[in-house]
């Protein structure tokens, strides 16, 4: 994409870097916030992971060779940041990632930045019970409404495997919701 190449050049050129990075921030801060928030669940952790994501993007721009799209590269960094924050937190508290997520979901009821009701809580709990990869695929497809091709670029998994993952995730969530 010639437009993207030009934009990357602007990001790398010290004279245009400031303005270009500001554009990048404005374009990506909301979608990346939503992606991270769906993984880490609370606002403060999302804020931390989002800041780290943009700082990492800035630091690694010179290494970005355009082998993938800027979009999927940034989504990949954001996903990794969110997952590593979650793992670090779980390790710090000496619990599994699933236990930590369930605890965070229980706290959502009193979270000022959550206005969901019972069905939302149940859905988040059902997602937390899934394996990590299925969680990511489900969140990207169901909440973020990304296309399989985009998810494939971000996670480096084939479209076929992603469809299977999503299908399994939906089945397990339905069983979970009915059982609870």
């Amino acid at each position, binding site marked *: 994409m010639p437009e993207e190449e030009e934009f990357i050049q602007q990001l790398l050129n010290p004279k245009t870097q*400031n303005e270009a*990075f*500001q554009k990048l*921030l*404005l374009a990506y*801060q*909301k979608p990346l*916030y*939503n992606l991270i*928030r*769906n993984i880490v*669940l609370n*606002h403060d952790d999302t*804020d931390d992971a*989002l*800041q780290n994501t*943009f*700082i990492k993007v*800035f*630091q690694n721009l010179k290494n970005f060779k355009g082998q993938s799209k800027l979009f999927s590269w940034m989504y990949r960094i954001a996903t990794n940041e969110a997952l590593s924050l979650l793992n670090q937190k779980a390790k710090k508290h000496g619990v599994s990632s699933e236990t930590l997520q369930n605890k965070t979901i229980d706290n*959502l009821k009193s979270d*000022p*930045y*959550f*206005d*969901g*009701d019972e*069905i*939302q809580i149940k*859905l*988040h709990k059902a997602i937390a019970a899934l394996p990590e990869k299925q969680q990511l695929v489900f969140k990207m497809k*169901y*909440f973020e409404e990304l296309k399989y091709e985009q998810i494939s670029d971000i996670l480096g998994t084939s479209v076929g495997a992603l469809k299977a993952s999503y299908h399994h995730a*939906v089945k397990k*969530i*339905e069983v979970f*919701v*009915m059982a609870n």
Partner: protein
Amino acid sequence: MKTFKLENEPKIKSGFNIPEHYFENFSENVMRNLPRNEPKVISIFKKRKNLLMIAAAILVVALMVPIFYSSPSSKEIDSVALENYLSYQTNITQYDLINALESEDIDKINTTVALENKTIEDILATNPDLEQLINE
């Protein structure tokens, strides 16, 4: 029991809200905290570190030089010092020396010295002490 099908249900939203004006402050914060001069700082630091390491290596090599050069000479014993040591500092007697020598060594020492009369006269003339010794 009522069946639950996700695709038949109305879309369930995540339920997450974002604090007001969050994104305005967020982009300002990020722009302020970008590590702008970091690469340059790192490069200067690395250069200094390398220079320090080179200086340290040279210093170590320089300190090693006298050790290498002085060690072989200390093993060689000066012949005069050995002679003096054998004469004054040890309990080795002439008998010990004789015992230590093989008969072949003695044969080597036992060479005939051809002396002409004139040479003997010269020696006697230049060494007044010898005359005294002969007299005794």
